[in-house]
């Protein structure tokens, strides 16, 4: 089945003339100039690069053809078979795997794959409209798009480029991320969105070069955002607006904070405001009722993210199943310990977790990357231990601190831990 909705739908795409730049090849085009493709909906389009996915996105925007975009690095035989059994034709370059179970296409439907806690890919239904969470007139920006194609964060940047006038995209594949700063300088990137891990890696690897990227907007999301990374970014880009966003495939972009501080004001809890997500905390878990949620997710959604209130701010500390460490009956938030470590001036990144230990069951331990990248800096472990002792209860102080040479990261730009 092919899909066609006629040319009138082009009117709904105000960003048609926005520039699309492929950082790898340097090629520049616009949405309107992308090669036309016909999608055999429902279709799963497998792409080797982020830029290669744009023609399918544009075709969906014009015709409403049911579409799922997935990076080739994520595709395996199981997922391919699951998609075909769910009615998708799988298009991988010239190769076509027909659906094994035929069904009618759903007009306007977009699917995202989310890993969830099990690591098994599940589909969350969206539409261009539910993925487009930025509205109103925006200042012209040239956005870095560093995300893996088909992820929620990728769609956020792509729909911004498609639906808002003056929002150009510079597409960098996750595999090429180490070179994004050079692309940022060359193509004049003025806005960039990435995870805190992405920003820490960037600040650590590029030093003063990063300040040559003319950023006016710096956005963080996808992981807990602590004050230290916000402060480092403010120091690097004093004239940029620095924002953090809480967003997920399930609840969409639900929290946006522009005041340069970690967490969000406690006054935002239990507040009803038209068009905005309602935020609540239930048993230490963030619960969101969102106007941008995925299909089938109605009402309050338990996010699985742990929160705590401190100094009038609601801080998101991490995933509930990974955040709480029980040390001999005393509960420790890994996120809070991480935040303390990352506030040390010599620390670029930290990962905190529980390790099985005699007597107390589990102990707090940490992997740390220093800003210098050193792994044998004399005295630093003792210094970090003292830093934590001054700021945390005794059972929250990491008893083993391992120094790593580089920040581990995976394709989602989140830390690889």
């Amino acid at each position, binding site marked *: 089945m092919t899909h066609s909705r006629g040319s009138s739908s082009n009117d709904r795409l105000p960003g048609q003339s926005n520039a699309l730049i492929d950082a790898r090849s340097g090629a520049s085009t616009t949405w309107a100039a992308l090669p036309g493709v016909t999608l055999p909906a429902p279709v799963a389009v497998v792409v080797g690069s982020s830029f290669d996915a744009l023609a399918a996105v544009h075709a969906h925007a014009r015709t409403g053809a049911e579409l799922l975009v997935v990076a080739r690095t994520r595709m395996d035989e199981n997922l391919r078979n699951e998609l075909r059994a769910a009615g998708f034709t799988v298009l991988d370059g010239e190769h076509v795997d027909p659906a094994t179970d035929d069904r009618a296409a759903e007009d306007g439907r977009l699917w995202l794959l989310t890993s969830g806690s099990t690591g098994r890919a599940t589909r969350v239904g969206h539409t261009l409209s539910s993925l487009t969470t930025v509205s109103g007139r925006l200042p012209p920006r040239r956005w870095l798009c560093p995300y893996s194609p088909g992820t929620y964060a990728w769609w956020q940047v792509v729909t911004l480029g498609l639906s808002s006038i003056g929002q150009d995209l510079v597409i960098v594949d996750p595999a090429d991320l180490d070179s994004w700063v050079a692309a940022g300088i060359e193509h004049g990137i003025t806005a960039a969105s990435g995870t805190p891990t992405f920003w820490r890696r960037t600040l650590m690897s590029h030093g003063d070069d990063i300040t040559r990227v003319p950023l006016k907007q710096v956005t963080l999301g996808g992981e807990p955002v602590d004050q230290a990374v916000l402060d480092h970014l403010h120091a690097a880009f004093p004239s940029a607006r620095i924002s953090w966003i809480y967003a997920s495939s399930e609840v969409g972009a639900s929290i946006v904070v522009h005041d340069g501080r970690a967490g969000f004001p406690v006054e935002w809890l239990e507040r009803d405001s038209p068009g905005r997500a309602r935020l609540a905390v239930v048993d230490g878990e963030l619960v969101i009722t969102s106007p941008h949620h995925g299909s089938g997710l109605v009402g309050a959604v338990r996010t699985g993210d742990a929160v705590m209130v401190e100094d009038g701010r609601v801080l998101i500390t991490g995933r509930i199943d990974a955040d709480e460490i029980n*040390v*001999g009956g005393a509960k420790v938030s890994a996120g809070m310990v991480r935040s303390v470590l990352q506030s040390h001036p010599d620390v670029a990144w930290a990962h905190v977790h529980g*390790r*099985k*230990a*005699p*007597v*107390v069951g589990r*102990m707090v*331990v940490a992997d740390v990357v220093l800003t210098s990248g050193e792994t044998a800096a004399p005295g630093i472990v*003792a210094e970090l*231990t003292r830093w934590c002792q001054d700021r945390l209860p*005794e*059972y929250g102080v990491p*008893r*083993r601190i391992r120094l790593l040479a580089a920040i581990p990261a995976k394709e989602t730009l989140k830390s690889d831990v």
Partner: protein
Amino acid sequence: MSVVPREQIRLLMGEVLAAQGKELPDDDSVDLRDIGFRSLDFSELALRIEDEIGEELNFDAAGLRQVQSVGDVLDLLTELQGQ
């Protein structure tokens, strides 16, 4: 499997205490309560030994026993490495 000898365990125990601003006396008969060596410190010491030998210590093998003095700690952790 490599083994951390008793004397080296003593050095590690001294490091654990030093990180807490405490000192390890030379006398093995000193009571752990008198030097402020508590369960968190014992656990940390066990992890340090595990990191040295590259294996997890099997505390189930130790059974129930009283660990009251510096010498008790050193004896227990020496024995467990062989189990």
